[in-house]
């Protein structure tokens, strides 16, 4: 449900002749602003202990790895040691990683990408041992062993809204959109729902088709699938990918197939997405707040290790940003949304 997001609340009134378009444009304008502030403001206030050991369980995809690296950087600032446990993204490798975490007895476990059904048994053990588990980007809820959840299902639907705002305003409310979704990642479902809701709201006459893609298509015949789809649906104007990965190789394939003029936007932008935007091969991306998520998790643990609740972090609304060629901060890799997030966080931790 996207009702609670600031985005939805901030524009109650509609514009004149095409109220949807106006609303979408307004929303888009807001989303394309680069956020300046991290969402937590309350300093930790106590001396943060050094030497904490933290296990970070990866999910087997790039974005988790990024998250882990940024988290490690943040933890290093506080003198903590992070052990990254790789997985192949399969349920049992995730389970095995948790099993190892149980044996490691770290001070905290950070993980990403998988719902608790996969590791319920280990989670119970960790809870019993009093080890906090911090999750992000998972189709999950806080509590019962999970101490903090960022980018949970309730947080990500705004990403759908953002994409919808761009599609609607970019097309002047005359879009015919295809949405390529990857059902294998359940956390992407709320994004898709958010997109559909807002897209229909803002753009009543617009076409929308959703295509599910098996995970095996990534890196193989995905470009071919897109080309085929677009050839058989020539009226489509906008293409949405629910994951940046799905777009890999697509622009080149479209070019050689002689398909021009399609607008492409991806959710969860990655370095390559930004390079595509820079090169004019893709039009927009929803930039994920990976840096901020990683550091807010560090922040939450800092509070935990100093005997405070993590509420401030759980409540905090992480920023998101819609990237287009105009506002692209840097093309040669990933970038934080809040430019000086490190400084701001360090200030909270009393490090600056």
């Amino acid at each position, binding site marked *: 449900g996207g009702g609670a997001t600031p985005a939805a609340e901030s524009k109650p009134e509609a514009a004149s002749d095409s109220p949807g378009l106006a609303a979408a444009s307004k929303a888009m304008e807001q989303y394309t602003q680069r956020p300046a502030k991290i969402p937590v403001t309350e300093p930790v206030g106590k001396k943060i202990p050094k030497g904490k050991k933290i296990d970070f369980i990866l999910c087997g995809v790039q974005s988790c790895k990024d998250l882990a690296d940024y988290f490690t950087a943040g933890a290093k600032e506080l003198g903590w040691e992070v052990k990254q446990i790789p997985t*192949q993204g*399969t349920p049992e490798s995730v389970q095995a990683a948790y099993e190892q975490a149980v044996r490691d007895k770290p001070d905290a476990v950070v993980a990403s990408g998988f719902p608790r*059904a*996969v590791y*319920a048994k280990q989670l119970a053990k960790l809870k019993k041992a009093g080890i906090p588990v911090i999750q992000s980007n998972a189709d999950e809820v806080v509590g019962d062993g999970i101490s903090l959840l960022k980018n949970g299902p309730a947080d990500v639907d705004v990403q759908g809204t953002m994409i919808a705002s761009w599609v609607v305003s970019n097309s002047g409310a005359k879009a015919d959109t295809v949405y390529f979704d990857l059902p*294998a990642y359940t956390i992407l479902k709320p994004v898709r729902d958010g997109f559909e809701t807002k897209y229909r709201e803002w753009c009543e006459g617009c076409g929308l088709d959703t295509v*599910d893609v098996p*995970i095996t298509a990534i890196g193989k015949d995905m470009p071919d699938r897109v080309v085929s789809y677009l050839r058989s649906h020539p009226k489509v104007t906008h293409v949405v990918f629910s994951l940046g990965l799905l777009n890999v190789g697509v622009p080149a394939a479209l070019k050689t197939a002689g398909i021009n003029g399609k607008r492409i936007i991806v959710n969860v932008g990655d370095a390559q997405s930004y390079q595509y935007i820079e090169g004019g091969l893709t039009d927009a991306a929803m930039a994920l707040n990976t840096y901020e998520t990683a550091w807010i998790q560090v922040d939450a643990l800092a509070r935990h290790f100093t005997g405070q609740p993590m509420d401030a972090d759980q409540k905090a609304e992480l920023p998101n940003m819609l990237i287009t060629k105009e506002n692209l901060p840097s093309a040669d890799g990933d970038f934080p949304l809040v430019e000086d997030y490190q400084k701001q966080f360090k200030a909270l931790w009393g490090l600056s």
Partner: protein
Amino acid sequence: MTSTPTRPAEHRPVTDPDAPAVYTAGTPVALGRRAAAALSFRNIGAVYVWLLIVVIFSVWAPETFPTATTVKQVLNGNAVAGLVALSVVAPLAARVFDLSVAFTMSLTSVLTAHFLVNAGLGSGTAITLAMTAALLVGVINGIVVVVLRVDSFIATLATGALIQSLITMVTNDSSITGLQLLAKPFASIAQLDAGGITLPVLYLLLAATAIWFLLEHTATGRRLYATGFNENAARLQGVRTGRLRFMTLVTSALLSGFAGVVFASSVGSGSPTAGTPYLLSAYAAAFVGATQLRAGRFNAWGTVIAVLLLGTGITGLGLATSAPWATSLFTGSVLIVALVLTGGRIALPAVLRRRKPSPAEPVASPDKKV
């Protein structure tokens, strides 16, 4: 695969004739010789490599590795992998490649979850239905390979694709999760434990024992090997090679299907890609296993040893280091070391070697090779 002219026959000195414990005992001398042969590097080289690994990790991670917990972790963590590896042993013995096992495993895992969660059936019914599907897969494989005579390697790739499409239809490619999968009757299948050893370890032992008995101690087993080594000769001696190959395909489907059910119970979800990571490692284990104990013959315990050898190393590595590349480096090197040192020169796929010419004549391995 190649036809390395390295059939076991040719490596063993004639004096200790391959001596499966089969041939009757005898004098103490003979017994001693037999024991020496059984413990020789040639025969159980992987076990020595395994011991070496244990020593290395005990030194490297002295606090965590040499513990009972590690033993349990290795056993529990590799039971499913072991089941999948065992599932390909019987087909390989008959020189049938079943590449669909990974898909069958995924299929039963999602079907069980589907019937339990989405259809609300009881555990027993759900498992029965899923295993029926596995049986069906085995029968279809059998029909394509034996009746329609498509080469098994490519045929099971094809049926694998068909199963994949079925999985996608059922799951839309996302895992099926639900409380029913985590609750008692079903969760116990994989999670019930005695002293920290879970049930799947028992299944592994049972399956290995059954396959060992079948291959080593029954007429069927003998005929399976004959089918694999020289289908022509076997058929001319009245062995129903087609029927046996059919049977192995059904067995592998059932066993890998069962692995899928166990997997679903152990992770508490039905994953549409549950089996994929197990495919190559199952074949690796079976091939390494074929160089152990009954050199040149795919066999159950050799396969189990291979699975545990690799599993021990990976668990040890997890305790000792967190370098992400360590696992594959370790797996690759251990495989090569184990195979080179133990004369892991399998007599392989006759597919590929079918026409190994005359047994005794010029072909017998030249001295320079040994």
